[in-house]
């Protein structure tokens, strides 16, 4: 077997095991919640018959192990179950929300790269000058700001005071609604990307081949773009993959703050309302994105960088 195939096979198997672990943990947690979903669903004065009936309907009258077996069996068949509250299949709810989350995640990552990378390059080229200090400090400040605090400030200034953007998600004004949450999510990423690129650039610019290129009389711009930046971007590609994976699972805080109708908001609501199938569904999907992103990044790495051993 060629090493790449067995490598892929092993990674894939681990991914499945990881997902199983996550789902089992989520299952145990969701079922350890001390509250009784029948009481949430039936209002304040249900009759004992109603409670018994609903329990049967929701499989709550069986042992935990039986419920777990039934649950894993369903997932293996690709059935995520039906939401307690919405009475719709969980898969349908997730399918409906995932597009919105994807729009937000992709925009945020786009902003991180678009702003973070040039800032990093600029800082590296002006090393230890004013611009560098400003960008480095600004980056640290960005990393030190809680997402919700940054989001709240953006919402207040650009939504409420200046009125440039809708306050929270507005149907029909999707593009305008997207700007503030995407920026909110991108704050930390911009800071991190600019710092990574700066560090890589500084290191690469000191390497011999760059010096050689410069000595050969290549213009500074050509050196920076053709040689240095290309190499400095490798870790950024990794980061993009991992960030996208994490963000696709739903950006809970940002979606919550901006009313963005995505997976994260659905997940929080499912926990608040004790909607167990939906809790499990959102956790499963969110972790699947993380796992797949990891896998893709590993494979890309192995493909791009022959030094990585396929062990």
């Amino acid at each position, binding site marked *: 077997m060629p090493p790449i195939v067995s490598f892929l096979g092993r990674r894939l198997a*681990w991914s499945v*095991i*990881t*997902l199983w*672990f*996550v789902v089992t*943990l*989520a299952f145990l*947690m*969701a079922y*350890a*919640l*001390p509250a009784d979903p029948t009481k949430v669903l039936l209002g304040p004065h249900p009759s004992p018959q109603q409670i018994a009936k609903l329990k049967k309907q929701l499989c709550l009258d069986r042992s935990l192990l039986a419920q777990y077996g039934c649950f894993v069996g369903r997932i293996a068949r690709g059935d995520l179950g039906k939401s307690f509250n919405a009475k719709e299949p969980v898969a349908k709810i997730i399918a409906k929300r995932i597009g919105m989350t994807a729009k937000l995640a992709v925009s945020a990552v786009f902003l991180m790269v678009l702003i973070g990378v040039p800032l990093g390059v600029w800082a590296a080229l002006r090393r230890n000058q004013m611009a560098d200090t400003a960008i*480095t*400090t600004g*980056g*640290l*400040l960005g*990393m*030190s*700001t*809680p*997402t*919700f*605090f940054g989001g*709240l*400030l953006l919402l*207040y200034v650009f939504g*409420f005071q200046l009125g440039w953007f809708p306050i929270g998600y507005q149907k029909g004004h999707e593009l305008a609604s997207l700007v503030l949450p995407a920026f909110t999510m991108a704050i930390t990423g911009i800071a*991190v990307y600019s*710092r*990574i690129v*700066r*560090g*890589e650039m*500084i*290191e690469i610019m000191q390497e011999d081949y760059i010096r050689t290129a410069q000595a050969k009389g290549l213009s500074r711009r050509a050196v920076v773009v053709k040689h240095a930046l290309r190499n400095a971007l490798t870790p950024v590609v990794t980061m993009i993959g991992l960030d996208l994976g994490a963000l696709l*699972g*739903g950006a*809970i*805080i940002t979606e*919550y703050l901006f009313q963005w109708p995505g997976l994260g908001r659905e*997940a*929080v609501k499912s*926990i*608040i309302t004790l909607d167990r199938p939906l*809790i499990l569904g*959102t*956790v499963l999907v*969110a*972790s699947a994105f*993380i*796992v797949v992103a*990891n896998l893709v990044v590993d494979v890309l790495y192995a493909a791009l960088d022959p030094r990585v051993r396929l062990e």
Partner: protein
Amino acid sequence: MYTGAVLDRRALRRFTRNRPALVGAGIVAIVLLLAIFGPMLAPHDPNEMHFEADALSALGKPQGPSAEFPLGTDAAGRCVLSRLLYGARVSLEVGIFATALAVGIGLWIGLLAGYYRKATDAVLMRFTDMVLAFPFLLLVITVASMRESSSMVDVFLVLGLTGWTTMGRVIRGKVLSLREMEFVQAARAVGAGNGRIILRHILPNVLGPTTVLASVGIAGFILSEAVLSYLGLGVPPPQASWGAMLYEGQSLYTLAPRLILIPGAAIVITVLGFNLLGEGLRDAFDPKDKRG
């Protein structure tokens, strides 16, 4: 025998010449002092509600700064300055305890995985991957809503038990290269056991990166505590933490922006301080590494 002193003279000199690192150390020192002595400086009991006119209008509006309340009062008529000072202690305690827990787990996982390699490494690192694959916030929210009540202990347990993964990976990397070094080989040659090698020879040499990670970790956990409190799942009322102050002030922020700006600034500055310190320490220990 090379023992790799944690802070040799050169590292110390590099650190003291690094102006941002000194600023970070200064901020951390001030915040630590405030957390220790803040309660003595606080003009009021942080949880006492004042119903007098200079604290709360007849209609329940919090009042701005005055001689009695230097930073004004919050929506429950409590002294913002006093809560800020007491909150420093809570936020730092959560940050430090969670970090201690995370370091405790991450350090050992890293040491064992890196030293024994092979199956041990594979199992531990896959486990780390699994923990990483769990959506952190969903986990935290579920755990928090599972508990009959949240306490500070819950908060740092949750944070610490989920936050050790980076630590584990970085330490493992260091150990992997350390175990091939001459002084380890030498120790093994003279018949030292695995336990002795790990404790005597490898551990002292990873304390440097661990300090760096801990400093950055405290910063991260202070942020996480704020997020939890913002969702209303942090320390129980009436206890003050900076995150809880943000949570309490958020719906008044159009009217009294100081109620979010003050704790928000406190968080940002403190986290910045720990980040700067961590970065300075990294530069001091390992001047070649310029990555963020």
